[in-house]
Every structure is written in C-alpha cells, then in structure tokens.
C-alpha cells in the first residue's frame, strides 16, 4: 500500500468504526431492533484482506458480523443503516436486518446467521466462478468458533478435492460468543487445523493492516492463479461484546486493555503521523467530516425512510411470475 492508499483506508476504517458506533447509539435509543453484532477492533481484517483483493468484483460472504465487509465491498451506507432500521429503503428492503446485509450488485453475497453456514456457500460460489471461467475469487470471512462446525471440514475438503478458487479468512477473536477459545477448541491456532486438508494456511497479526495486507496479497494471488483454496488466520479482538445483549463479563480487563492498545485504526493513524504524512488536525478534520456525514446523510435518511408495507409481507418469498411454475410445452 502506498501513502495515498493508507490514507484512504484509514478514512474508510474510521468511517466504518464511526458508522458502527452510531449503530450502537441507535440501538440504545431502540431505533434499531433485533440483534446487532459490531466489529470494532477487527477492522484491519476486512479492510486488509479486501484491499488486497478486488472488492466489488470478487465474491464476498460472511457471518452475522457483516456491516463492515459490506461497506468495503461498496455497499451504500445509507441503504445499510436503513436496513438496520428495518426500512423499505434498506439493502434488503427491511426483510433482512443487521445479520443479513446483502449487496449483490457489489458481489457482497450476504451475511448469514448460522455459524459456519457460509463455508460451503463460498465453495459453491467458487465452483460457479470456475465453471464460468472468470478470474474472480470467493472470499469467506468467519470467526474462529465457526471452525467447530462440520461445514468447516466438509468445505475445506471439497474445496481442495475440486481445487476451488476460495479464500477462507478466519478472524480469530479468541471467543465464540462468551466462551474463550481454549475452553471450546482443542487447537487454538486455527491454521494448524487446516493441515489435514493439504491447503496452504498462515496465521498473522490481524490488528496491523499492513501485515494483513501483505499476507492477504500472497493468499489472494495463490487463489487467483488457480492453485486452489487458501486459509488465512488473523489474530484479532472485538472491543465490544459478542452482540448488544452481551455484558462482556467473561473477559479479563487486562486482556481487554492489552488489545485496545493495538487498535488497528490508531496504529495506522500514528504510523502516518510519525511518517509526517498526516497531522493530528488532519485526522480530527477527517473524523468530524465523517461524523457529520453519518448524522446528516445516513441517519437522517434512515429515520425519514418509510416502513415496508404490511400488504407486501409476502413479497420476495418466491420469484414473481416465473413462467416455469406453470409449466409450458415448448
């Protein structure tokens, strides 16, 4: 990444952080309902990997902690926030919610709430890419705890057997909801679990975006060049609870302090300041601009948007007017 890229990504990450902090506020105000899983602290994972890939072209899929991946793929933040508000103008027309953000136009193929559900879906998208002869790849982001699902093993096996262009990114934040990894998982280093499938795998620091980017570049190149699947493990930490209903009581304060000292946004900011590429004032101005945009454009849009119509509750269950449902003699 050159300096211009770093500055751009710093802004994008800061935007994502502020966007989600505003989601938190709206949730507390009860303007957003349901579940809300936030990503603060893990931003370098999505941004570092996708910066090394082709967001908007490569097919990206993830679990329920999905807002930031969607933003990086190119999703309209207004439609994203409106979806959290459950509005008709939301990306899923208010039918999906926080855990089910989709932006198919930008190849963000969704957030899924069943832990481990996206593993085979990503392999399937990779199969489709291969059949169609494109040079896109499929990228699946999931947490460490998803690796205890059968779909993890089933999908790695199939991806290798069929040499599919899929990159599995493991965001290892050390907790499956409230259970620490060493209490649920026999092997803490997730990349080691992949060796049984003869798939190249690597573990790197997930807080330093330049480290993530470098590792992701190698991973993406491997997959895109037709060499088959790759597994990249990023060691990271979420600064909030699993979801809004999580009091976070299961984590040691020392551990939290240690990780908060490695905030991916602050790390990149300080590095740019040290290099003389950015001033404190530049950063503050950037932050103010972002906050104003979120408030004046995004939140305003979401609050003023209409609710879906009750008479359209059945819409989107099945394809509309599909001629093959009636059958035809051709």
């Amino acid at each position: 990444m050159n300096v211009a890229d770093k500055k751009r990504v710093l802004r994008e990450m800061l935007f994502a952080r502020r966007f989600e902090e505003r989601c938190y506020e709206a949730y507390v105000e009860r303007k957003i309902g349901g579940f809300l899983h936030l990503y603060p602290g893990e931003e370098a994972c999505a941004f570092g990997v996708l910066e090394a890939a082709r967001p908007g072209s490569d097919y990206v899929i993830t679990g329920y902690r999905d807002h930031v991946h969607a933003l990086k793929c190119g999703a309209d933040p207004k439609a994203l926030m409106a979806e959290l508000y459950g509005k008709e103008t939301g990306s899923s027309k208010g039918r999906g919610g926080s855990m089910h953000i989709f932006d198919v136009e930008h190849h963000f193929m969704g957030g899924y709430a069943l832990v481990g559900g996206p593993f085979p879906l990503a392999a399937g998208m990779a199969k489709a890419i291969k059949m169609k002869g494109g040079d896109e790849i499929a990228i699946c982001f999931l947490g460490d705890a998803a690796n205890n699902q059968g779909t993890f093993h089933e999908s790695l096996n199939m991806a290798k057997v069929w040499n599919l262009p899929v990159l599995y990114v493991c965001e290892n934040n050390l907790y499956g909801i409230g259970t620490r990894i060493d209490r649920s998982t026999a092997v803490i280093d997730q990349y080691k679990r992949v060796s049984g499938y003869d798939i190249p795998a690597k573990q790197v620091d997930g807080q330093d975006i330049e480290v993530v980017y470098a590792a992701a570049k190698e991973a993406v190149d491997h997959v895109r060049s037709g060499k088959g699947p790759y597994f990249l493990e990023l060691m990271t930490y979420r600064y909030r609870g699993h979801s809004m209903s999580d009091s976070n009581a299961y984590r040691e304060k020392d551990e939290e302090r240690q990780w908060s000292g490695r905030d991916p946004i602050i790390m990149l900011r300080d590095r740019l300041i040290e290099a003389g590429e950015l001033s404190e004032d530049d950063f503050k101005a950037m932050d103010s601009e972002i906050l104003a945009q979120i408030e004046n454009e995004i939140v305003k849009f979401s609050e003023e948007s209409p609710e879906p119509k009750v008479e359209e509750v059945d819409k989107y269950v099945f394809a509309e007017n599909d001629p093959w449902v009636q059958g035809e003699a051709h």
Partner: protein
Amino acid sequence: MAEMMYWEAIRRAHDEEMTRDPLVICMGEDIGVAGGTYKATKGLYDKFGPERVIDTPISENGFTGLAIGASFLGVRPIVEIMSVNFAWLAMDQIFNSAAKVRYMSGGQLTAPVVIRSPGGTAHQLGAQHSARMEKVFMGVAGLRVVTPSNPKQAYGLLKSAVRCNDPVFINEHELMYNMKGEVPDGEYFHPLEGSEVTRQGRDVTLFGYNISLHWCMQAAEILSKQHGIEAEVVDLYSLAPLDREGIRESVKNTHRAVIVEEAEAPVGVGSEVMAIINEECFFDLDAAPVRVSARNVPTPFNHTLEKASIPNAKDVVAAVLKMFGK
C-alpha cells in the same frame, strides 16, 4: 409417447437440460462414475465429465450448501441426496440458506437449486433408511416441494424445476424407479403447482401423491367393482404450495375426503389437506374427512411388521367403506 421407466425419465430430463445449458450440473454420492444408486444419472459422467457430474464426498450439508452457493451465481445444480433420511443432515443449508436467501436479501439473490431425494419404505431397510420426510420440507416458506407419481411427472417436474428460479425439492420414492409409464416424445414441462384429477368420481375424493396415489387408484377400482362406490382420485403432485382450489373443487363435488399418505399422521400432508378442507369447504362435507397413514413408529425391520406399519390399498378401501357405514 414412448414408455419408459421412472429412472429413465429422470435421466432424460438431466440429459436434455445439461445439453441445453452448460451451467446445469448434477452432484451427489455415487452419481458419476458409479452411475447413481437409482441410475437416474447413468451415462452422464461419460457424456458431460467430472466438472458437471460430480461425485461428492459423504457430506450432505456441505455439498448441498456448495450447490446452493453455486446457484447464487447462476449455476443450476441438480443435487441427488441418496436417501431422504440423509437429507436431515442438509436441512440447515436447505432451510436456512436456499429457502430464505431471497427473502432475507429483499429479492436480490435467489437459489435456483433442485434437490432430488427418495424417501419411503422399500424392502427391510430399517428405521434410518425408510422415513418419509415430505411433511418436513412442505412446512418451510420459500421452498417448493413436488413429488412425481409417474414417469411423465418425474420427467416434466424435473425439467420445470431446473428452469424455475426458486429452490425446488423433489420427493421421489425408492420403490418407484422401475415403474413404467408413458412420457411425451417432445420436451414437456409439468406445472410445479396444482393437482391432477387422475380418476373422476362422484362419491368420495381420495387424495394421494407419489406412491400413495397408486394405492388410491387401486382402491378406487375395488370400490367401483365390488362396492358400487365411485371415487375421484386427486394427485397432489405439489405439496408446497398445496392446491387449495383443486382440493376445494373436488370435495365440493364429492362431499367426502380421504387423504392417503405413507408417512405417519402427525403434522403431515393429511392434516394439512384436512385443514384446507375445513377452511375452504367445510359446509360441503357429508362426512368427517379421514386420514390413512402410517403407524406412528420408526419403520420396523421385520418384513411383516414393516408392511403392517404403512398403509396400502386395502386400508384405503376399508376407510372409505367405514365412512359409508359399510
């Protein structure tokens, strides 16, 4: 019209659709090199190759999910799950991914995947290879469920299912693959919704589907010849959605209904059809509707117990005679 076997009809639909569209693929356990447990994909591996006729590992949730993911990008997978009992393992992907993705994405994404699987009691396969599961599939919003009772339907329903933009589950039966029947020589697309009157009658309607449709037809012949009762037989080839209008029209004419299913009664096709009759045409009834269904037990291994656990044409006749006070 040429006569062919049920498995040949399914094979022909695969062959035609795969020839027409390079994005149609099929996958499942032993369907390629081995030619398929029921021969439904026989010869396709040699014709279309391993990229399109895919022998999968024994990972039902994994390969079904993979097919669904491929369908997001326009591939049209036909998945064979060797026995419907194994489809339990793929329920997560079928229900949580395929059936819901269109709704959850506000219509942005759809999963045009076809999943074929045989259920039913065959010959002493035991409790874990004999279950009927259509009742489970038909209760989920966003999934179409069809069940062919003859080779023509087996061919035409698969043809339409491959082209339809919704996920379709095709419920087949272990005992029906060698059944013979006429299939149109030209391409034929069977409707995925509706029902078919396969025998007209005025006294009682027998509702059946898949194998139980044949018990209904046999029972109707016996009732006509031996008891002077003319039964109408309705084939519910679409279980989701059920044909409310077809059910109503028939019961309005006959005023009596018997619903026949191989599955055990609780939360089944019979209870659903009864509910529809109650909602649609209760005051047309001359008698309370009756279900003929399996005993509520895991399917026994012993041959005699196995046969006793599921209904047959005689049970249908007995139910009708009881309804008529005979």
